[in-house]
Protein backbone atom coordinates (compact mmCIF):
# COMPACT_ATOMS: atom_id res chain seq x y z
CA UNK A 1 0.00 0.00 0.00
CA UNK A 2 2.86 2.38 0.68
CA UNK A 3 4.59 1.41 -2.56
CA UNK A 4 7.37 -0.28 -0.65
CA UNK A 5 6.98 -3.84 -1.89
CA UNK A 6 10.04 -5.54 -3.22
CA UNK A 7 12.22 -3.70 -0.72
CA UNK A 8 14.41 -5.71 1.58
CA UNK A 9 15.22 -5.43 5.20
CA UNK A 10 18.91 -5.22 6.01
CA UNK A 11 20.78 -6.28 9.05
CA UNK A 12 23.02 -3.85 10.93
CA UNK A 13 24.88 -4.00 14.25
CA UNK A 14 21.92 -2.77 16.20
CA UNK A 15 19.41 -5.06 14.48
CA UNK A 16 17.13 -5.01 11.44
CA UNK A 17 17.03 -1.74 9.53
CA UNK A 18 13.44 -0.77 8.72
CA UNK A 19 12.37 0.25 5.21
CA UNK A 20 11.92 3.97 4.63
CA UNK A 21 9.01 5.38 2.65
CA UNK A 22 10.47 8.79 1.91
CA UNK A 23 13.85 10.44 1.40
CA UNK A 24 13.67 12.32 4.68
CA UNK A 25 13.20 9.01 6.45
CA UNK A 26 10.24 10.41 8.33
CA UNK A 27 8.26 7.17 7.97
CA UNK A 28 9.90 3.82 8.58
CA UNK A 29 8.20 0.47 8.07
CA UNK A 30 8.59 -3.10 9.18
CA UNK A 31 6.49 -5.97 7.89
CA UNK A 32 6.85 -9.66 7.35
CA UNK A 33 6.20 -8.87 3.70
CA UNK A 34 9.79 -7.62 3.50
CA UNK A 35 11.10 -10.94 4.75
CA UNK A 36 9.36 -13.18 2.20
CA UNK A 37 11.22 -14.38 -0.85
CA UNK A 38 8.19 -14.24 -3.10
CA UNK A 39 5.20 -11.98 -2.54
CA UNK A 40 2.79 -14.91 -2.86
CA UNK A 41 4.43 -17.04 -0.22
CA UNK A 42 1.88 -17.98 2.39
CA UNK A 43 2.97 -17.58 5.98
CA UNK A 44 1.38 -20.71 7.40
CA UNK A 45 2.37 -20.31 11.00
CA UNK A 46 0.72 -21.22 14.20
CA UNK A 47 0.66 -18.77 17.08
CA UNK A 48 3.99 -19.36 18.86
CA UNK A 49 6.03 -18.62 15.76
CA UNK A 50 4.08 -15.46 15.09
CA UNK A 51 4.59 -14.43 18.69
CA UNK A 52 8.34 -14.82 18.37
CA UNK A 53 8.44 -12.64 15.27
CA UNK A 54 6.37 -9.92 16.94
CA UNK A 55 8.83 -9.85 19.82
CA UNK A 56 11.66 -9.46 17.32
CA UNK A 57 9.86 -6.65 15.53
CA UNK A 58 9.59 -4.74 18.78
CA UNK A 59 12.99 -5.64 20.20
CA UNK A 60 15.33 -6.21 17.29
CA UNK A 61 14.44 -3.50 14.78
CA UNK A 62 16.64 -0.44 15.02
CA UNK A 63 13.84 2.06 14.90
CA UNK A 64 16.00 4.97 16.05
CA UNK A 65 14.21 7.94 17.63
CA UNK A 66 10.51 7.80 16.96
CA UNK A 67 7.68 10.10 17.93
CA UNK A 68 5.01 7.53 17.19
CA UNK A 69 5.02 3.81 16.59
CA UNK A 70 1.86 2.63 14.85
CA UNK A 71 1.11 -1.09 14.95
CA UNK A 72 -1.31 -2.50 12.37
CA UNK A 73 -2.89 -5.78 13.51
CA UNK A 74 -4.99 -8.53 11.96
CA UNK A 75 -8.63 -8.89 13.05
CA UNK A 76 -9.45 -10.70 16.26
CA UNK A 77 -8.23 -11.07 19.81
CA UNK A 78 -5.64 -13.78 19.67
CA UNK A 79 -1.92 -14.46 19.48
CA UNK A 80 -0.85 -11.37 17.57
CA UNK A 81 -2.83 -9.05 19.81
CA UNK A 82 -1.83 -10.60 23.10
CA UNK A 83 1.82 -10.70 22.04
CA UNK A 84 1.88 -7.13 20.78
CA UNK A 85 0.35 -5.79 23.96
CA UNK A 86 2.76 -7.88 26.04
CA UNK A 87 5.80 -6.81 24.04
CA UNK A 88 4.89 -3.13 24.20
CA UNK A 89 3.82 -3.06 27.82
CA UNK A 90 7.26 -2.01 29.15
CA UNK A 91 7.09 1.03 26.86
CA UNK A 92 3.74 2.24 28.16
CA UNK A 93 1.74 2.28 24.95
CA UNK A 94 -0.55 5.22 24.53
CA UNK A 95 -3.47 3.05 23.59
CA UNK A 96 -5.53 1.48 20.87
CA UNK A 97 -7.40 3.07 18.00
CA UNK A 98 -10.25 0.75 17.17
CA UNK A 99 -11.50 0.75 13.58
CA UNK A 100 -14.91 -0.49 12.52
CA UNK A 101 -17.17 -0.30 9.50
CA UNK A 102 -20.66 1.00 10.22
CA UNK A 103 -22.76 -2.16 10.07
CA UNK A 104 -23.81 -4.29 13.01
CA UNK A 105 -21.88 -7.38 11.91
CA UNK A 106 -18.64 -5.45 12.11
CA UNK A 107 -19.58 -3.49 15.20
CA UNK A 108 -20.28 -6.81 16.95
CA UNK A 109 -16.66 -7.89 16.49
CA UNK A 110 -15.41 -4.53 17.66
CA UNK A 111 -17.38 -4.76 20.89
CA UNK A 112 -15.32 -7.84 21.65
CA UNK A 113 -12.16 -5.95 20.72
CA UNK A 114 -13.01 -3.26 23.28
CA UNK A 115 -13.48 -5.92 25.94
CA UNK A 116 -10.05 -7.23 24.95
CA UNK A 117 -8.52 -3.77 25.52
CA UNK A 118 -10.18 -3.51 28.90
CA UNK A 119 -9.00 -6.96 29.98
CA UNK A 120 -5.45 -6.28 28.80
CA UNK A 121 -5.34 -2.89 30.53
CA UNK A 122 -4.86 -1.13 27.21
CA UNK A 123 -6.40 2.37 27.07
CA UNK A 124 -8.71 3.07 24.12
CA UNK A 125 -7.80 6.27 22.28
CA UNK A 126 -11.03 6.11 20.37
CA UNK A 127 -13.20 4.51 17.71
CA UNK A 128 -12.99 5.29 13.96
CA UNK A 129 -15.82 4.45 11.57
CA UNK A 130 -14.36 3.61 8.17
CA UNK A 131 -16.08 3.13 4.79
CA UNK A 132 -19.01 5.19 5.90
CA UNK A 133 -20.68 6.60 2.85
CA UNK A 134 -19.81 6.52 -0.82
CA UNK A 135 -20.35 9.54 -3.04
CA UNK A 136 -21.47 8.47 -6.51
CA UNK A 137 -19.07 10.02 -9.02
CA UNK A 138 -21.90 10.19 -11.57
CA UNK A 139 -24.56 12.02 -9.61
CA UNK A 140 -22.91 12.87 -6.24
CA UNK A 141 -25.62 10.99 -4.35
CA UNK A 142 -24.13 9.66 -1.12
CA UNK A 143 -25.02 6.03 -0.42
CA UNK A 144 -24.28 4.38 2.88
CA UNK A 145 -22.98 1.20 1.31
CA UNK A 146 -22.32 -0.36 4.67
CA UNK A 147 -25.01 1.53 6.60
CA UNK A 148 -24.11 4.41 8.89
CA UNK A 149 -23.58 5.41 12.48
CA UNK A 150 -22.55 2.07 14.01
CA UNK A 151 -19.15 3.38 15.07
CA UNK A 152 -20.49 6.40 16.87
CA UNK A 153 -23.14 4.39 18.64
CA UNK A 154 -20.58 1.84 19.70
CA UNK A 155 -18.30 4.54 21.12
CA UNK A 156 -21.20 5.99 23.09
CA UNK A 157 -22.23 2.58 24.35
CA UNK A 158 -18.70 1.79 25.48
CA UNK A 159 -17.98 5.25 26.87
CA UNK A 160 -14.92 5.87 24.70
CA UNK A 161 -14.21 8.82 22.38
CA UNK A 162 -15.53 8.74 18.82
CA UNK A 163 -12.79 10.04 16.54
CA UNK A 164 -14.72 10.38 13.30
CA UNK A 165 -16.00 8.82 10.07
CA UNK A 166 -13.88 8.16 6.99
CA UNK A 167 -15.69 7.89 3.63
CA UNK A 168 -15.02 5.24 1.00
CA UNK A 169 -12.77 6.67 -1.68
CA UNK A 170 -12.15 4.40 -4.69
CA UNK A 171 -9.84 6.97 -6.26
CA UNK A 172 -7.49 6.65 -3.32
CA UNK A 173 -7.49 2.85 -3.55
CA UNK A 174 -6.84 3.08 -7.23
CA UNK A 175 -3.98 5.54 -7.06
CA UNK A 176 -2.29 3.62 -4.27
CA UNK A 177 -2.62 0.33 -6.10
CA UNK A 178 -1.06 1.80 -9.16
CA UNK A 179 1.94 2.53 -7.00
CA UNK A 180 1.56 6.29 -7.07
CA UNK A 181 3.19 8.28 -4.34
CA UNK A 182 1.07 8.03 -1.24
CA UNK A 183 2.26 11.28 0.25
CA UNK A 184 1.40 13.14 -2.95
CA UNK A 185 -1.86 11.40 -3.72
CA UNK A 186 -3.38 11.21 -0.30
CA UNK A 187 -4.09 14.94 0.20
CA UNK A 188 -6.27 14.86 -2.92
CA UNK A 189 -8.59 12.26 -1.47
CA UNK A 190 -11.97 12.91 0.09
CA UNK A 191 -10.80 10.75 2.97
CA UNK A 192 -7.91 13.12 3.66
CA UNK A 193 -9.69 15.76 5.71
CA UNK A 194 -11.38 13.18 7.93
CA UNK A 195 -8.15 11.28 8.52
CA UNK A 196 -6.24 14.50 9.25
CA UNK A 197 -8.83 15.49 11.80
CA UNK A 198 -8.63 12.06 13.43
CA UNK A 199 -4.83 12.26 13.47
CA UNK A 200 -5.06 15.68 15.11
CA UNK A 201 -7.29 14.31 17.86
CA UNK A 202 -4.83 11.51 18.46
CA UNK A 203 -1.95 14.00 18.63
CA UNK A 204 -3.95 16.09 21.08
CA UNK A 205 -4.66 13.18 23.35
CA UNK A 206 -0.96 12.23 23.16
CA UNK A 207 0.13 15.64 24.37
CA UNK A 208 -2.50 15.58 27.09
CA UNK A 209 -1.32 12.16 28.15
CA UNK A 210 2.36 13.02 28.47
Amino acid at each position, binding site marked *: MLNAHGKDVHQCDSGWVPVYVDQEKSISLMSIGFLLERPDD*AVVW*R*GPKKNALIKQFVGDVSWGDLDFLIVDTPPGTSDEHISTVDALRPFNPMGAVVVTTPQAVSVGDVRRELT*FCKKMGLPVVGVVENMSGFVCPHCTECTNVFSKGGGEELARHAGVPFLGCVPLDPLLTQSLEQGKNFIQEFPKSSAYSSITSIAQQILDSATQGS
Partner: protein
Amino acid sequence: MADVPENAPQHCPGTGSSDAGKSSACEGCPNQTLCAAAAGPDPAIEEIKEKMSSVKHKILVLSGKGGVGKSTFSAHLAHGLAEDEGKQIALLDVDICGPSIPRIMGLEGEQVHQSGSGWSPVYVEDNLAVMSVGFLLGSPDDAVIWRGPKKSGMIKQFLRDVDWGDVDYLIVDTPPGTSDEHLSVVQYLSAAHIDGAVIITTPQEVSLQDVRKEINFCRKVKLPIIGVVENMSGFICPKCKNESQIFPPTTGGAKKMCSDLKIPLLGRVPLDPNIGKSCDAGKSFFTEIPDSPATLSYRTIIQKIQEFCSLRQS
Protein backbone atom coordinates in the same frame (compact mmCIF):
# COMPACT_ATOMS: atom_id res chain seq x y z
CA MET B 1 21.37 -34.26 17.63
CA ALA B 2 20.99 -36.00 14.33
CA ASP B 3 17.25 -35.92 14.17
CA VAL B 4 16.74 -32.18 14.64
CA PRO B 5 16.01 -30.62 11.26
CA GLU B 6 17.65 -27.34 10.39
CA ASN B 7 14.37 -25.45 10.37
CA ALA B 8 13.17 -26.81 13.71
CA PRO B 9 12.73 -24.48 16.68
CA GLN B 10 15.16 -24.41 19.60
CA HIS B 11 13.58 -27.01 21.84
CA CYS B 12 12.80 -29.61 19.19
CA PRO B 13 12.51 -32.97 20.95
CA GLY B 14 13.94 -34.67 17.86
CA THR B 15 11.97 -36.18 15.03
CA GLY B 16 12.57 -39.68 16.36
CA SER B 17 11.25 -38.98 19.83
CA SER B 18 7.80 -40.13 20.86
CA ASP B 19 7.00 -36.46 21.47
CA ALA B 20 7.82 -35.50 17.90
CA GLY B 21 5.26 -33.08 16.56
CA LYS B 22 3.47 -32.99 19.90
CA SER B 23 5.70 -31.14 22.36
CA SER B 24 5.15 -27.47 23.06
CA ALA B 25 8.21 -26.66 20.94
CA CYS B 26 6.47 -28.27 17.98
CA GLU B 27 3.67 -25.72 17.98
CA GLY B 28 4.44 -23.59 14.97
CA CYS B 29 7.26 -25.76 13.62
CA PRO B 30 6.88 -26.22 9.85
CA ASN B 31 7.44 -29.96 10.24
CA GLN B 32 4.75 -30.48 12.80
CA THR B 33 2.24 -32.23 10.57
CA LEU B 34 4.86 -34.59 9.24
CA CYS B 35 6.40 -35.33 12.63
CA ALA B 36 3.05 -35.86 14.27
CA ALA B 37 2.03 -38.21 11.47
CA ALA B 38 5.22 -40.23 11.86
CA ALA B 39 4.74 -40.45 15.61
CA GLY B 40 1.18 -41.66 15.14
CA PRO B 41 -1.74 -39.35 14.48
CA ASP B 42 -3.82 -37.50 17.04
CA PRO B 43 -6.53 -40.02 17.96
CA ALA B 44 -9.07 -37.26 17.41
CA ILE B 45 -8.49 -37.49 13.68
CA GLU B 46 -9.89 -41.03 13.62
CA GLU B 47 -12.78 -40.08 15.90
CA ILE B 48 -13.60 -37.16 13.66
CA LYS B 49 -13.48 -39.40 10.61
CA GLU B 50 -15.99 -41.65 12.34
CA LYS B 51 -18.23 -38.69 13.19
CA MET B 52 -17.98 -37.28 9.69
CA SER B 53 -18.99 -40.53 8.05
CA SER B 54 -22.56 -39.23 8.17
CA VAL B 55 -21.56 -35.95 6.49
CA LYS B 56 -21.51 -36.22 2.71
CA HIS B 57 -19.84 -32.99 1.59
CA LYS B 58 -17.52 -30.65 3.42
CA ILE B 59 -16.76 -27.19 2.11
CA LEU B 60 -14.37 -24.63 3.60
CA VAL B 61 -14.88 -20.92 2.98
CA LEU B 62 -11.57 -19.04 3.06
CA SER B 63 -10.16 -15.58 2.38
CA GLY B 64 -6.84 -13.83 2.67
CA LYS B 65 -8.11 -10.47 3.84
CA GLY B 66 -10.67 -9.86 6.53
CA GLY B 67 -14.06 -8.34 5.95
CA VAL B 68 -14.39 -9.45 2.32
CA GLY B 69 -17.65 -11.33 2.88
CA LYS B 70 -16.80 -14.91 3.93
CA SER B 71 -19.42 -15.14 6.63
CA THR B 72 -22.04 -13.53 4.43
CA PHE B 73 -21.21 -16.01 1.70
CA SER B 74 -21.14 -19.02 4.03
CA ALA B 75 -24.50 -18.05 5.48
CA HIS B 76 -26.09 -17.65 2.09
CA LEU B 77 -24.54 -20.80 0.72
CA ALA B 78 -26.23 -22.51 3.65
CA HIS B 79 -29.56 -20.76 3.01
CA GLY B 80 -29.36 -21.54 -0.69
CA LEU B 81 -28.59 -25.22 -0.24
CA ALA B 82 -31.25 -25.54 2.46
CA GLU B 83 -33.98 -24.46 0.03
CA ASP B 84 -34.04 -28.09 -1.01
CA GLU B 85 -35.98 -29.48 1.93
CA GLY B 86 -34.68 -32.95 1.23
CA LYS B 87 -31.15 -31.87 2.09
CA GLN B 88 -29.61 -31.41 5.53
CA ILE B 89 -27.22 -28.49 5.84
CA ALA B 90 -24.80 -27.70 8.66
CA LEU B 91 -22.94 -24.42 9.07
CA LEU B 92 -19.91 -24.37 11.35
CA ASP B 93 -18.25 -21.08 12.34
CA VAL B 94 -14.60 -21.64 13.30
CA ASP B 95 -13.87 -17.93 13.62
CA ILE B 96 -13.27 -18.30 17.33
CA CYS B 97 -12.36 -14.67 18.07
CA GLY B 98 -14.83 -13.00 15.69
CA PRO B 99 -17.91 -15.20 15.40
CA SER B 100 -20.37 -13.32 13.19
CA ILE B 101 -22.47 -16.26 12.00
CA PRO B 102 -24.94 -16.07 14.94
CA ARG B 103 -25.86 -12.51 14.01
CA ILE B 104 -26.05 -13.12 10.26
CA MET B 105 -28.26 -16.17 10.80
CA GLY B 106 -30.51 -14.27 13.23
CA LEU B 107 -29.45 -16.48 16.14
CA GLU B 108 -27.86 -13.98 18.52
CA GLY B 109 -28.42 -14.89 22.12
CA GLU B 110 -29.02 -18.58 21.37
CA GLN B 111 -27.20 -21.12 23.51
CA VAL B 112 -25.94 -24.57 22.71
CA HIS B 113 -27.50 -27.50 24.53
CA GLN B 114 -25.84 -30.58 25.80
CA SER B 115 -27.42 -33.72 24.45
CA GLY B 116 -26.72 -37.37 25.16
CA SER B 117 -24.37 -37.68 22.24
CA GLY B 118 -22.64 -34.30 22.53
CA TRP B 119 -23.48 -30.66 21.85
CA SER B 120 -26.60 -30.11 19.85
CA PRO B 121 -26.36 -27.34 17.26
CA VAL B 122 -28.83 -24.49 16.94
CA TYR B 123 -31.42 -24.93 14.18
CA VAL B 124 -32.55 -22.08 11.90
CA GLU B 125 -34.87 -24.43 10.11
CA ASP B 126 -35.43 -28.16 10.35
CA ASN B 127 -32.75 -28.79 7.78
CA LEU B 128 -30.26 -26.05 8.68
CA ALA B 129 -28.08 -26.47 11.78
CA VAL B 130 -25.55 -23.92 13.02
CA MET B 131 -22.65 -24.08 15.45
CA SER B 132 -20.49 -21.18 16.60
CA VAL B 133 -18.42 -20.19 19.58
CA GLY B 134 -20.87 -17.29 19.78
CA PHE B 135 -23.42 -19.73 21.25
CA LEU B 136 -21.07 -20.43 24.14
CA LEU B 137 -20.60 -16.81 25.17
CA GLY B 138 -22.60 -15.08 27.85
CA SER B 139 -22.90 -11.64 26.27
CA PRO B 140 -22.14 -9.94 22.94
CA ASP B 141 -19.35 -8.05 24.69
CA ASP B 142 -17.54 -11.21 25.74
CA ALA B 143 -14.13 -11.48 24.09
CA VAL B 144 -12.47 -14.80 23.41
CA ILE B 145 -8.86 -13.94 24.22
CA TRP B 146 -7.27 -17.23 23.26
CA ARG B 147 -4.00 -18.20 21.72
CA GLY B 148 -3.73 -20.84 19.00
CA PRO B 149 -3.70 -24.14 20.92
CA LYS B 150 -6.88 -23.27 22.77
CA LYS B 151 -8.61 -22.29 19.56
CA SER B 152 -7.53 -25.58 18.02
CA GLY B 153 -8.99 -27.44 20.99
CA MET B 154 -12.32 -25.73 20.42
CA ILE B 155 -12.29 -26.64 16.74
CA LYS B 156 -11.54 -30.24 17.61
CA GLN B 157 -14.57 -30.26 19.88
CA PHE B 158 -16.76 -28.69 17.20
CA LEU B 159 -15.82 -31.41 14.75
CA ARG B 160 -15.84 -34.33 17.15
CA ASP B 161 -18.45 -33.55 19.78
CA VAL B 162 -21.28 -31.79 17.94
CA ASP B 163 -24.24 -33.95 17.26
CA TRP B 164 -24.75 -33.05 13.59
CA GLY B 165 -26.67 -36.15 12.58
CA ASP B 166 -26.94 -36.97 8.87
CA VAL B 167 -25.72 -34.03 6.84
CA ASP B 168 -25.50 -33.46 3.09
CA TYR B 169 -23.36 -30.33 3.22
CA LEU B 170 -21.16 -29.08 6.04
CA ILE B 171 -20.02 -25.52 5.39
CA VAL B 172 -17.13 -24.22 7.47
CA ASP B 173 -16.75 -20.43 7.80
CA THR B 174 -13.20 -19.45 8.78
CA PRO B 175 -11.38 -16.33 9.98
CA PRO B 176 -9.15 -14.58 7.42
CA GLY B 177 -5.61 -15.77 6.76
CA THR B 178 -3.70 -19.00 7.05
CA SER B 179 -3.09 -19.79 10.65
CA ASP B 180 -4.08 -22.00 13.55
CA GLU B 181 -7.76 -22.32 12.72
CA HIS B 182 -7.11 -23.30 9.11
CA LEU B 183 -4.34 -25.72 9.89
CA SER B 184 -6.46 -27.32 12.57
CA VAL B 185 -9.56 -27.75 10.42
CA VAL B 186 -7.53 -29.25 7.60
CA GLN B 187 -5.60 -31.49 9.96
CA TYR B 188 -8.62 -32.71 11.90
CA LEU B 189 -10.57 -33.36 8.72
CA SER B 190 -7.62 -34.96 6.96
CA ALA B 191 -8.96 -38.48 7.30
CA ALA B 192 -12.56 -37.42 6.68
CA HIS B 193 -11.92 -35.88 3.24
CA ILE B 194 -12.85 -32.27 2.45
CA ASP B 195 -14.49 -31.63 -0.93
CA GLY B 196 -12.70 -28.35 -1.31
CA ALA B 197 -12.39 -24.67 -0.53
CA VAL B 198 -14.21 -21.64 -1.84
CA ILE B 199 -12.01 -18.53 -1.67
CA ILE B 200 -13.66 -15.13 -1.29
CA THR B 201 -11.96 -11.93 -2.39
CA THR B 202 -12.73 -8.33 -3.26
CA PRO B 203 -11.53 -6.97 -6.64
CA GLN B 204 -8.61 -4.81 -5.57
CA GLU B 205 -4.99 -5.92 -5.62
CA VAL B 206 -4.48 -5.55 -1.86
CA SER B 207 -7.02 -8.32 -1.41
CA LEU B 208 -5.93 -10.47 -4.37
CA GLN B 209 -2.39 -10.42 -3.09
CA ASP B 210 -3.56 -12.23 0.00
CA VAL B 211 -5.68 -14.65 -2.05
CA ARG B 212 -2.56 -15.83 -3.85
CA LYS B 213 -1.15 -16.68 -0.44
CA GLU B 214 -4.35 -18.51 0.40
CA ILE B 215 -4.10 -20.50 -2.83
CA ASN B 216 -0.53 -21.43 -1.98
CA PHE B 217 -1.76 -22.55 1.40
CA CYS B 218 -4.36 -24.81 -0.23
CA ARG B 219 -1.74 -26.30 -2.50
CA LYS B 220 0.62 -26.85 0.42
CA VAL B 221 -1.97 -28.72 2.47
CA LYS B 222 -3.43 -30.45 -0.62
CA LEU B 223 -6.84 -28.90 -0.24
CA PRO B 224 -8.76 -28.85 -3.57
CA ILE B 225 -9.94 -25.39 -4.65
CA ILE B 226 -13.56 -25.31 -5.80
CA GLY B 227 -13.11 -21.76 -7.03
CA VAL B 228 -12.94 -18.06 -6.27
CA VAL B 229 -15.82 -15.66 -5.65
CA GLU B 230 -15.26 -11.98 -6.31
CA ASN B 231 -17.41 -10.10 -3.84
CA MET B 232 -18.20 -6.37 -3.67
CA SER B 233 -17.52 -6.26 -7.37
CA GLY B 234 -19.04 -3.02 -8.65
CA PHE B 235 -21.72 -0.85 -7.12
CA ILE B 236 -24.89 0.34 -8.82
CA CYS B 237 -25.92 3.77 -7.58
CA PRO B 238 -29.49 3.48 -6.35
CA LYS B 239 -30.24 6.96 -7.68
CA CYS B 240 -28.71 7.17 -11.16
CA LYS B 241 -28.20 3.41 -11.76
CA ASN B 242 -24.63 3.96 -12.97
CA GLU B 243 -21.99 1.51 -11.89
CA SER B 244 -18.90 2.51 -9.90
CA GLN B 245 -15.97 0.41 -8.81
CA ILE B 246 -15.72 1.02 -5.09
CA PHE B 247 -12.85 -1.43 -4.80
CA PRO B 248 -11.28 -0.94 -8.23
CA PRO B 249 -9.82 -4.07 -9.92
CA THR B 250 -6.60 -2.28 -10.87
CA THR B 251 -4.77 -5.49 -11.72
CA GLY B 252 -7.60 -7.16 -13.61
CA GLY B 253 -9.51 -8.37 -10.57
CA ALA B 254 -10.23 -11.98 -9.70
CA LYS B 255 -10.82 -12.83 -13.36
CA LYS B 256 -7.25 -12.24 -14.39
CA MET B 257 -5.85 -13.84 -11.28
CA CYS B 258 -7.94 -16.97 -11.81
CA SER B 259 -6.92 -17.33 -15.42
CA ASP B 260 -3.27 -16.76 -14.50
CA LEU B 261 -3.42 -19.40 -11.80
CA LYS B 262 -5.80 -21.72 -13.68
CA ILE B 263 -8.48 -21.91 -11.06
CA PRO B 264 -12.21 -21.44 -11.66
CA LEU B 265 -13.85 -18.08 -11.04
CA LEU B 266 -17.25 -19.07 -9.66
CA GLY B 267 -18.76 -15.64 -10.12
CA ARG B 268 -18.97 -12.06 -9.02
CA VAL B 269 -21.33 -10.57 -6.46
CA PRO B 270 -21.98 -6.83 -6.68
CA LEU B 271 -21.94 -4.53 -3.68
CA ASP B 272 -25.50 -4.10 -2.55
CA PRO B 273 -26.31 -2.15 0.61
CA ASN B 274 -29.31 -4.44 1.11
CA ILE B 275 -26.98 -7.37 1.72
CA GLY B 276 -25.46 -5.60 4.70
CA LYS B 277 -28.92 -4.70 5.96
CA SER B 278 -30.21 -8.25 5.67
CA CYS B 279 -27.13 -9.55 7.48
CA ASP B 280 -27.50 -7.02 10.26
CA ALA B 281 -31.11 -8.06 10.64
CA GLY B 282 -30.20 -11.75 10.60
CA LYS B 283 -32.27 -12.49 7.51
CA SER B 284 -31.51 -14.17 4.22
CA PHE B 285 -31.39 -11.61 1.41
CA PHE B 286 -32.58 -14.34 -0.93
CA THR B 287 -36.00 -13.92 0.63
CA GLU B 288 -35.58 -10.18 1.33
CA ILE B 289 -34.60 -9.23 -2.22
CA PRO B 290 -35.25 -12.31 -4.35
CA ASP B 291 -34.56 -10.86 -7.78
CA SER B 292 -31.62 -8.53 -7.17
CA PRO B 293 -28.52 -9.06 -9.32
CA ALA B 294 -26.64 -10.11 -6.17
CA THR B 295 -29.15 -12.85 -5.41
CA LEU B 296 -28.99 -14.17 -8.96
CA SER B 297 -25.23 -14.18 -8.92
CA TYR B 298 -25.14 -15.98 -5.57
CA ARG B 299 -27.50 -18.61 -6.92
CA THR B 300 -25.34 -19.30 -9.97
CA ILE B 301 -22.32 -19.69 -7.70
CA ILE B 302 -24.15 -22.07 -5.39
CA GLN B 303 -25.18 -24.17 -8.34
CA LYS B 304 -21.58 -24.45 -9.49
CA ILE B 305 -20.55 -25.58 -6.03
CA GLN B 306 -23.27 -28.24 -6.02
CA GLU B 307 -22.07 -29.48 -9.38
CA PHE B 308 -18.48 -29.64 -8.16
CA CYS B 309 -19.53 -31.67 -5.14
CA SER B 310 -21.75 -34.08 -7.05
CA LEU B 311 -18.90 -34.83 -9.43
CA ARG B 312 -16.73 -35.77 -6.53
CA GLN B 313 -19.36 -38.06 -5.15
CA SER B 314 -19.46 -40.40 -8.12
